[in-house]
């Protein structure tokens, strides 16, 4: 089949402008996007730099963007991204500086992983043999260790786009793996560490990481699990906890979201609440204040919503 590929180029040794080069190569029917890139750099244009190794979606080297979305190019079939032979666009991952062409500086990524104390810390004397742990615990963790640290989720994380200090989906999914390991002896400290600013409460559940993860790890799900664990461990003095509690409370009581109250409730300290005043003023000036303003009222039929909440809460208690 004929593959038309538009590749983002950047050469720090040359004229340093970011541009695209277009290539057309002949490939086997079931070829992956990586096959196209390898064919280009081996037979057409040796100046193209690409990281790749295993070709089996296990080493995590070849994460990059195809048609705007992060993926591993080694398991992305050309037929999926160009079903009718369209030209595809290949670019380096986002949220990381480009070193050359499709190669990004991964130090940003590794530093996030390193920041979560990514090794098990058992407490007390080690058993002579293995730790006795139920297989279901291990199976649950195996879902998280499917992560190959390719960086695709970090590339497309919408929070990282505005706040580079966010721990990010990959590191937080790995964080869950340690917090939930029954052999680890520092769960509480871990949950405190991951609850800090830039941690688990900064995820906005935009689902990007779930969508792009090439291994089906769904990092966001594990971030939400971490939050449940943190709340269950009594770590409630966080804006994130107050935010989710206020949200649930307002929907339960009134049938819908009280946006103004949500903003106020989310901040614990009075001094922080005060900082919202200019935001409120700007919201009004820009015409973005909810029509009800501070006068939130119950929706008709809200009692049904309340009943659903009570039923669910009853089940959980």
């Amino acid at each position, binding site marked *: 089949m004929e593959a038309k590929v538009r590749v983002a180029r950047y*050469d*720090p*040794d*040359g004229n340093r402008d970011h541009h695209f080069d277009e290539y057309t190569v002949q490939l*086997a029917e*079931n070829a*992956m996007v990586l096959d196209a890139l390898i064919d280009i*750099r*081996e*037979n057409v*244009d*040796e*100046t*193209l*730099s*690409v*990281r*790749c*190794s*295993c*070709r*089996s*979606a*296990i*080493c*995590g*080297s070849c994460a990059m963007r195809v048609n705007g979305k992060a993926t591993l190019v080694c*398991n992305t*079939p050309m037929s999926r991204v160009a079903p009718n032979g369209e030209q595809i666009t290949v670019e380096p991952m986002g949220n990381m500086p480009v*070193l*050359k*062409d499709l*190669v990004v500086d*991964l130090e940003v990524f*590794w530093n996030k992983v*390193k920041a979560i104390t*990514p*090794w*098990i810390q*058992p407490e007390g004397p*080690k058993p002579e*043999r*293995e*730790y*006795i*742990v*139920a*297989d279901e615990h*291990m*199976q649950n*963790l*195996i879902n998280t*260790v*499917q992560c*190959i*640290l390719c960086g695709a989720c970090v590339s497309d994380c919408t929070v990282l786009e505005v706040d580079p200090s966010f721990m990010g989906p990959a590191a937080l999914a790995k964080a869950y793996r340690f917090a939930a*390991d029954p*052999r680890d002896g520092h769960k509480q400290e871990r949950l405190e560490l991951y609850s800090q600013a830039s941690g688990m409460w900064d995820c906005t559940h935009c689902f990007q990481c779930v969508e792009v993860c090439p291994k089906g790890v769904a990092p966001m799900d594990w971030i939400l699990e971490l939050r449940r664990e943190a709340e269950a461990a009594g770590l409630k003095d966080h804006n994130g906890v107050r935010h989710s509690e206020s949200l649930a409370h307002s929907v339960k009581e009134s049938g819908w979201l009280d946006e103004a109250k949500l903003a106020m409730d989310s901040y614990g300290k009075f001094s922080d609440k005060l900082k919202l005043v200019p935001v409120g003023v700007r919201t009004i000036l820009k015409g973005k204040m909810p029509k009800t303003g501070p006068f939130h009222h119950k929706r008709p039929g809200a009692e049904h919503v309340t009943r659903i909440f009570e039923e669910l809460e009853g089940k959980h208690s």
Partner: protein
Amino acid sequence: MVFEHDVLIIGAGLAGLRAGIEAKRKGVDVAILTKVYPVRSHTNAAQGGINASLDEGDSWESHAYDTVKGSDYLGDQDAIEILAQEAPSDIIELEHMGVIFNRDEEGRLGTRAFGGASHARTYFVADITGQALLHVGYEQSLKYKIPTYNEFFATSLIYEDGAVKGCVAIEMRTGELHVFKAKAVIIASGGVGRAFEPSTNALICTGDGMALAYRVGAPLMDMEMVQYHPTTLPSNGALLTEGARGEGAYLVNSNGDRFMSTYAPNMLELASRDVVSRSEQTEINAGRGIDGCVMLDCRHLGADLIHSKLRQIWELARDFSGVDLVTEPCPVRPGMHYIMGGIKANFNGQVKWGESAGQSVPGLYAIGETSCISIHGGNRLGANSLLELVVFGRRSGLHAAEYAMTQKHANVGESRAEIDRKKITALLERPQASDMVGKLRMELGDTMNQHVAVFRDEAGLKTAVAKVKELKQRYQGIGLQNKGKVFNTNLLSALELENMLDVAEVITESALYRKESRGAQFRTDYPERNDAEWLKHTLAFQTDSGPRLDALEVTITKWQPQKRTY
């Protein structure tokens, strides 16, 4: 720049990481230099598991015997005994380090059956055991604060005053060459699969460590022993784990027969890999294949088992062959997978082939696939390779640390990098040529896969030898399009090809040298094993005119060679 460490490890797969941890525990200054980030290493590709005789009904002797038999009696039995004896405590240690092993109903470590083993002694993490172990090794290297020089490619070993004293390496990010001074160097840089096309191996498996050691006088041992794995995908050579057959999958031919009953009536699909691959190729050659393949049938295992324990290979079959293992059999064929041969090292990882002066390379260690300690002899059993990484990683880390404490750094400075810098500059400055790196590598891969595969003979091997020599000649004339400094993967590929050509020459010459059939080496012109003349290792030394071949006694402790049936 000049960097200095007591122990320098080249390669950050599980062997290198494990060696680093042990050296660090011993208290020396250790660092790892690696051409890819640690978790990108090829240890990832080991799917099925890791062997140990932990079970009460099992014994280390049984594990050792299975390994000796699997090796077709070419493995060194002193090293195999150590491997089998130390396996249980190393598995427990891995568990304590955080590996999420599958469990049995009682919450203890669970096992699965594997090829060539008389007992189910393979511990596993779904079908991502290598990945799970590698990531834990990386985590522990962070815990122990072992510095890693990521994306640095070693271009030569520093050999001074009769010992290895470090290496020169190029930093991919800047293109700069640096000198790494070390009192001991451990090579843990993996195999040479990319000299074959196709191969299950990652693109990084280019025999770099073997070539580096060979050029300072270390012999490469048993290089003719190249394992073809029985279940690889025809499209790109990707591997489907032996764990599938361990869980009960069948191999069938075009008549729908489970043909392994003809070749290995007792062990069937779980005979050792050389036997199964040869059987498959025999079926295919006899016209009982389907488009050059036989079929791997998992359907009777059921969707639940496939999705929980064989999830990765279900994905691979779907992505690369468009096959749903739950409902369809999958075409597979023997594919180049592993090299049993490598840098000759003893059970402490020391590069040493005798007790006399001149029969060792002081300061140099080798572990993992790049080495030949010789655990696997003529044929490696599945799930012994991960084990080898931890046992000999640990042992070499300890030994190298103790050795380093007795040594001083060599008196070399930045200028030592000049030799390598000149060579690379010359390569970059050569004019454009018709031969591109990719083209030469493809010709090499095709040649090796055609003539140095499951069945070999003198004529084919001579053709391969001549072709490799021709390619070495043509390599001297290649020109690179990419002249840049930053992340020049064109340059990297050229240096890797140079390494592969040296190693491939040794593989073909060694296969020609061994005039018998043993393990993975099957010579149609010498179809029998010949213990009287060939129960010995092949050693290849570098000379100006190509490899000089020699023989070395096999170490036998308990198990005398017997006829090998499964």
